[in-house]
């Protein structure tokens, strides 16, 4: 007998708004004239994200619960992370739309399908006014990201994983300059992403075999009871963890991170680095806190080891990097380790410190990559560290903002990085992971060395004449100022957001 599931549309309204916006964007792509497409898509995208944020705060917050036949949970952590995702993606989309005086978004190719350097590509550039497919792709990716931490069912989580990943694979391949690198990044991201999501799915299948359902609450109930297929539980958990650890870029599943971060268009890198991490950590929190918490003795030591080597490798390997985007990529790997340290605490303070760190990291990362996109040499981005030497003399504001963000990455007091690290390490120490906190502090010290070296280079390096810092439009300026202010605000007066995270950290089971 089939009974239709109860669906609480009000709780799902933010998600519905985002997906509808993405689909309308696809339609506009087909029907609008080239000349109006860029501005129409930009307004549609920003409008959709803002409306979704408004519905999240005013509607979904009052309709919390488990809905859609137990597949979606709208609870405190979901709402907090969805709100964070929406704000970060508004900033990310603003940065993506940066035109730098041209008529189309500057970082993206006019025609992703054309062969680099071909007559077809030249034709597309001459016609101009396209590149608007990035907006619906970004919206659909945001929709998947918002569904990811809300999923209470491993199958839905797998679908959300694919919905968020597929648009990102395409976006990574659309850089305007150095297109071969960009396509290569897309290929690597796609093949490794598909590989890891297959592991996630097989893990979910094993857990289904174990519990008879992919719903996390049913799996949680089945742990500890005799199901007859108990041998499937641990392999299932570890395979699911593999898929999630790949998405956050934890060692040993990190090898795609530097390549994809370097090859993808810089605004996409910022968007992807911040938002994918938020979404994937949200899903991880739900799987480990709601689903398999009862089997913690079996997976917690493994995850702790992963966190430790992630912090160490991320910090140590960043020392030998010579490309700014790769340095930021390894820094994102190290940060994944720090956030994992908080997640391992496995109680409310673990969830709240993880969410606070995600907010802090997101608001540093989007503006940092936005600033990287402004440093140019001979028309394309200058990402080698030597090209950044002495930039402070020509672009004092840019150098000041970037240095401040680097200090936040390093976790210096009065920045959000310090508060975030303090929160996750405190949570770890309170839950018998003091050794992990010690490794974390040592790894922070190593990463601080590389950031300070970069700041010294920015201010005291031998200035190079071929590197210019272009003046950004209001879009990028707004995103950078927002990011810097939030980073400062979370460092000076973190209490409101810490309280918000603490109040939101209660999972519905």
């Amino acid at each position, binding site marked *: 007998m089939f009974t239709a599931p109860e669906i609480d549309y009000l709780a799902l309204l933010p998600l519905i708004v985002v997906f509808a916006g993405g689909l309308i964007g696809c339609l506009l792509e087909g029907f609008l004239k080239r000349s109006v497409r860029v501005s129409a898509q930009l307004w549609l995208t920003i409008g959709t994200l803002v409306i979704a944020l408004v519905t999240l705060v005013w509607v979904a917050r009052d309709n919390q619960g488990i809905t859609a036949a137990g597949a979606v949970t709208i609870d405190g952590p979901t709402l907090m992370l969805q709100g964070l995702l929406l704000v970060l993606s508004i900033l990310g989309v603003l940065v993506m739309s940066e035109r730098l005086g041209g008529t189309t978004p500057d970082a993206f190719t006019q025609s992703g399908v054309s*062969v680099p350097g071909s007559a077809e590509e030249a034709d597309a550039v001459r016609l101009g006014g396209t590149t608007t497919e990035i907006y619906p792709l970004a919206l659909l990716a945001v929709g998947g990201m918002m569904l990811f931490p809300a999923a209470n069912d491993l*199958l839905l989580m*797998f679908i959300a994983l694919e919905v968020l990943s597929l648009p990102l*694979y395409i976006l990574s391949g659309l850089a305007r300059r150095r297109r071969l690198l960009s396509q290569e990044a897309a290929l*690597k991201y*796609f093949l490794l992403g598909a590989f890891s999501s297959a592991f996630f*799915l*097989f893990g979910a299948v094993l857990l*289904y075999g174990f519990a008879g359902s992919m719903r996390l609450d049913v799996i949680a109930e089945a742990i500890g009871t005799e199901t007859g297929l108990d041998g499937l539980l641990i392999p299932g958990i570890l395979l699911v963890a593999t898929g999630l650890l790949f998405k956050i870029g934890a060692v040993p599943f990190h090898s795609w991170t530097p390549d994809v971060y370097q090859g993808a268009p810089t605004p996409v890198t910022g968007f992807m680095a911040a938002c994918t991490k938020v979404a994937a950590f949200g899903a991880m929190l739900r799987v480990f806190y709601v689903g398999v918490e009862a089997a913690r003795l079996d997976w917690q030591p493994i995850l702790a080891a992963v966190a430790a080597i992630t912090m160490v490798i991320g910090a140590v390997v960043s020392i030998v990097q010579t490309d700014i985007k790769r340095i930021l990529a390894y820094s994102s790997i190290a940060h994944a380790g720090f956030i994992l340290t908080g997640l391992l605490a496995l109680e409310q303070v673990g969830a709240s410190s993880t969410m606070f760190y995600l907010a802090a990291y997101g608001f540093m990362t989007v503006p940092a990559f936005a600033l990287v996109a402004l440093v140019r040499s001979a028309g394309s981005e200058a990402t080698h560290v030597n090209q950044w030497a002495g930039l402070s003399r020509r672009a004092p504001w840019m150098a000041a903002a970037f240095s401040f963000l680097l200090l936040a990455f390093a976790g210096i007091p009065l920045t959000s990085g310090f508060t975030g690290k303090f929160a996750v390490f405190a949570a770890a120490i309170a839950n018998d992971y003091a050794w992990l906190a010690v490794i974390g502090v040592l790894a922070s010290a190593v990463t601080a060395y590389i950031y300070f070296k970069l700041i010294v280079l920015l201010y005291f390096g031998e200035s190079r004449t071929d590197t210019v810092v272009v003046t950004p439009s209001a879009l990028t300026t707004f995103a950078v100022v927002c990011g810097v202010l939030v980073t400062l605000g979370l460092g000076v007066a973190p209490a409101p957001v810490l309280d918000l995270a603490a109040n939101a950290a209660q999972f519905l089971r």
Partner: protein
Amino acid sequence: MNLSAYIYLATLLFALGALVVLLRRNTIIVFMGVELMLNACNLALITFARMHGTLDGQVYALFVMVVAAAEVVVGLAIIMSIYRARRSASVDDANLLKL
């Protein structure tokens, strides 16, 4: 016949798919390895559905097929664009991004 044999077969297929991804050099073949892994999941899903006596697993398998199809669309598009730019579908040739 004992149902667990199908689980072993699915695990074997999954491992084969993973090996294909790790060992083969042609992107299309690598991608086929991924598809083999997804289909191994499908086989395991419907076997578990039979074991538990519920239909859930069969419905899950349908969803997985749809996702796999979507993945093929994006994947082949990326592989094609690389192939047209470089006249090569080998993963070893995609080596511009290095330290």
